[in-house]
């Protein structure tokens, strides 16, 4: 053994020790706050106390328990009085009194509400300058008052660093309010109509996120340890990694090289590529999510389900009866691993919180979404096993073509208020027209849906196609092709901005930045050259739309526009949910937006429903797809590199869009994302040799023996009968499904 090898175990042990030490330190810093003088570790509080209590605004002769036909109907008045009391508890006087009662040393508590009355109302008052508030507010102590304005029950909610403090805050609020009412009543016993506050039972409360600290510490320890171990592993395995990468690249053929007669889509009789092309056409041209077929399928009967089931059935049939190169290549890549790991974590998140979900009646929703996720992954498995590298450019061109059709239809919808997709399909199938179609949202933007169920989904769909169009324009072999691709870019951008959503600008900009990261000069030169042409196309096709979107993105406006403030307001509102199950979440997709709140952020949604582990796995899916594309982008074949770059940027668009809306809730985007991921996987494969297609288990026809006999030896290009003699797929298997 050489000296270099001998010193390795010791060095490895010290590296492992260092990683463990750093992991431990990171976990400790998450759980404890260090102080230098005196040197100590103070527990970092990740939990919160919460409490709730109710007050009934009643009269001395109780309105609730009495039916006196002669007495005035004062229940409604009591309801209005309850609103006044809620507003009183938000006043400086009351919040200061509460701060004093809790011993906050001159600070007051934060108070807000009533949310039931305020929700759904637009704030019409402009913002005015206000003098600095001399009162210090301790935002750790938060009081929330709620009343519906019609009934006289006032609900008081509190959040404080501990449960005891929260309970004390609610009790103090009740006392302050009772004192306030007492002070305003005339001395003496009072008449039967004098106001009486009835405290409805004891204040209930508890701790939120009691185990959050340990869960976060364990997560951080495991994360840092895993990162460190990965670095050590990657460093130690660099020799084999480099060798494998070289071998893999060496095995790849150049896509532009002539390869003779190949069985590639569209010049193929294999059914599966045609089925995939049809499925992609459905993604772009059919509002399938709004079509509920009159057939009984488990969990959902939207139009994509039977088609996907048929596709998977065909694929399974191909695996069973076809052999040779025409058979789908079933394999396990890093993308497969990431997707399966994500599915596994999602399943466990539902199981581990199963009893609570069952209690809330939310298991059904999670089960439905898990099945949906499973079908997305099955779709990816089919795509990755069926598409061949030389088919990728053709599918990319198909995608651009379909994207352009959608873009044109979107522009028509923006200008003429006519949605061609819904109008055509509703004549054939039962289509549920979305409520907001052709309406305006809360900030006056026109709802343009295209074939999707949400303008954001449409904007993301078009932005995903854009990188392929840009790459097509740059790599175009002829001037005509370049012009066509340039028009396609313009129409895709125009279609995007016609949705009037900020995403229509943010997502394409993200895509272009990703492209520029790999080919800065080429992309910058190309985009600058096209800027005027594209600007004209966008302005002419969707007049006013670009200005509307850009105004939403202006400095000083982007943070104040309602669609942005709504998103940021959610970060504080979902904190209790995050603290309750930080590691594994409350159950995949169990956070019903209709029941709780619309998050418009897939990352935030996954953080709540699948925890940090699920979020990490979701990011891992993007990382696996993008790193798979990265290697091809850096490879020697320029054609493969261009396509992989387009696909990488397309996936990057969805990684970005995941922060802007809940992408997994809108099926067009996940289907297209996984189709593109399948293309990336295919680009890493060599072109399969032209081989005969035969049924699994059947033997190839025996070659004739003898010198100079026809069919002896490899066929020559001039030998017209060669194909018929050797494999003759068209004769032996009339319909090849693989």
């Amino acid at each position: 053994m050489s000296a270099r090898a001998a010193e390795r175990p010791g060095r490895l042990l010290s590296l492992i020790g260092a990683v463990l030490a750093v992991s431990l330190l990171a976990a400790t810093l998450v759980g404890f706050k260090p102080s230098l003088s005196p040197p100590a570790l103070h527990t970092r509080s990740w939990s919160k106390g919460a409490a709730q209590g109710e007050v009934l605004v009643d009269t001395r002769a109780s309105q609730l328990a009495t039916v006196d036909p002669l007495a005035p109907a004062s229940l409604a008045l009591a309801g209005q009085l309850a609103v006044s009391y809620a507003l009183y508890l938000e006043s400086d006087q009351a919040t200061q009194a509460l701060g004093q009662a809790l011993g906050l040393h001159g600070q007051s508590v934060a108070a807000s509400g009533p949310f039931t009355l305020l929700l759904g109302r637009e704030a019409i008052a402009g913002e005015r300058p206000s003098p600095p508030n001399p009162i210090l507010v301790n935002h750790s102590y938060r009081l929330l008052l709620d009343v519906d304005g019609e009934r006289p029950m006032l609900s008081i909610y509190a959040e404080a660093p501990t449960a005891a403090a929260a309970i004390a805050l609610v009790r103090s609020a009740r006392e302050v309010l009772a004192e306030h009412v007492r002070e305003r009543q005339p001395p003496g016993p009072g008449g039967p109509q004098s106001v009486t506050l009835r405290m409805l039972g004891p204040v209930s409360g508890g701790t939120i996120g009691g185990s959050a600290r340990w869960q976060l510490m364990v997560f951080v320890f495991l994360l840092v340890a895993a990162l460190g171990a990965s670095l050590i592993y990657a460093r130690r395995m660099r020799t084999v990694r480099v060798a494998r990468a070289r071998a893999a690249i060496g095995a790849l053929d150049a896509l532009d090289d002539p390869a003779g007669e190949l069985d590639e889509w569209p010049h193929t009789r294999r059914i599966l590529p045609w089925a995939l092309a049809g499925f992609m056409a459905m993604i772009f041209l059919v509002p399938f999510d709004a079509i509920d077929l009159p057939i009984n399928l488990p969990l959902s009967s939207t139009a994509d389900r039977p088609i996907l089931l048929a596709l998977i059935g065909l694929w399974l049939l191909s695996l069973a009866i076809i052999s040779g190169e025409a058979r789908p290549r079933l394999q396990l890549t890093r993308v497969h691993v990431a997707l399966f790991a994500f599915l596994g974590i999602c399943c466990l998140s539902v199981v581990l919180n199963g009893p609570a979900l069952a209690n809330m009646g939310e298991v059904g929703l999670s089960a439905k979404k898990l099945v949906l996720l499973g079908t997305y992954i099955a779709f990816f498995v089919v795509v990755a096993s069926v598409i061949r590298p030389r088919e990728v450019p053709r599918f990319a061109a198909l995608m651009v073509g379909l994207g352009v059709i959608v873009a044109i239809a979107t522009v028509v919808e923006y200008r003429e208020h006519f949605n061609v997709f819904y109008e055509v399909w509703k004549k054939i199938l039962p289509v549920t027209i979305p409520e907001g179609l052709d309406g305006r949202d809360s900030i006056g933007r026109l709802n343009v849906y295209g074939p999707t169920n949400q303008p954001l989904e449409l904007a993301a769909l078009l932005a995903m196609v854009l990188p392929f169009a840009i790459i097509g324009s740059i790599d175009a072999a002829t001037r005509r092709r370049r012009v066509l691709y340039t028009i396609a870019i313009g129409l895709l951008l125009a279609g995007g901005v016609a949705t009037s959503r900020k995403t229509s600008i943010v997502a394409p900009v993200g895509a272009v930045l990703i492209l520029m990261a790999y080919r800065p000069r080429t992309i910058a030169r190309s985009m600058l050259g096209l800027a005027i042409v594209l600007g004209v196309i966008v302005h002419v096709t969707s007049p006013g739309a670009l200005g509307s979107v850009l105004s939403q993105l202006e400095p000083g406006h982007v943070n104040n526009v309602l669609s942005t403030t709504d998103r940021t307001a959610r970060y504080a509102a979902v904190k209790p949910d995050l603290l309750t199950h930080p590691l594994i979440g409350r159950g995949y997709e169990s956070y019903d937006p209709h029941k709780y709140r619309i998050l418009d952020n897939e990352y935030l949604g996954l953080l709540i429903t699948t925890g940090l582990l699920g979020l990490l796995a979701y990011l891992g899916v993007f990382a696996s797809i993008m790193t798979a594309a990265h290697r091809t982008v850096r490879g020697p074949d320029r054609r493969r590199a261009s396509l992989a770059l387009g696909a990488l940027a397309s996936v990057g668009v969805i990684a970005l869009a995941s922060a802007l809306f809940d992408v997994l809730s809108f099926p067009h985007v996940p289907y297209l994302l996984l189709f593109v991921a399948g293309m990336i996987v295919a680009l890493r494969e060599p072109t399969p040799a032209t081989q005969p297609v035969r049924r699994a288990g059947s033997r190839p026809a025996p070659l004739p023996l003898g010198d100079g006999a026809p069919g002896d030896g490899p066929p020559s290009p001039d030998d017209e009968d060669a194909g018929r003699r050797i494999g003759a797929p068209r004769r032996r298997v009339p319909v090849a499904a693989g």
Partner: protein
Amino acid sequence: MEFAQILKILWARKLITGAVIAVAVAAAVAVHSSVSSIPTGAATVQLLVDSPDSALANLSQETTPLTERASVLAQVMTSAEVLKEVAAAAKVPLSEITAEGPYSGPGQVLDVITPAEARSNQLLAEHAKYRLTFLAQTDEPVVTASVQGPTAVSAAAVAAAIYPGVESYVTRLQHQSGTPPAHYVTIRQLGPPQAGSVNSSTRSTLTIAAFIGILLLGLLGVLGLEVISRRARENAALESEHEAGYDELTLDTSALTTAHAQPHVRADVGGTAARRR
């Protein structure tokens, strides 16, 4: 990695693969048999908010004031004050009962997204065994109470306790406020509670999810470990070849003493490097 290769690896690691499958099956069985933690019972009961001489039997009496009171009462029923009485009547701890509503008529506005402070309290109540919902009819003085509980029998028992609990609260209120008996609001139960089973598919859903989740992650773990060990072996082989190249090189150079040998050594270095590439 090809599918056939995956099967070969799993077959080669029969014991670990078998252990993963066994753990997945065990987890599924454990989830399936955790009967007590999944609520399977539901019951409903209706309460009429009435006057001593029933408004339903008296044409001269308007029901509007009673309907208003039913709406308020439905909201008050969700408070700890009434739930305390219901819990006492049903002989279950108050901490095991939570309530929400009313989500009908004017109460629909309460079924809204909630700020953090209110959401925290919803989360605290997520594990309560008995979940009560009160719905007040818009035009009639009727409150429908729904109960979800661990079993149909226990849900029915709590549903049956709602009437005595509410009546006890209202009676106490009437005594406290000195209401004349002729003006009493009178609560009447409209028939016995209706009970049944719910969440019938929940257990099988969770069982399947547990099996799939553990199986997927376990098998990926087995394959991952196999890939790591294979790569380590390949790496070791490549590096030993690499080091052997260096050793040969050292031997060659030590054996060569004449100046004529130097070009040959350089050629060897090039050759080794080329092989490595």
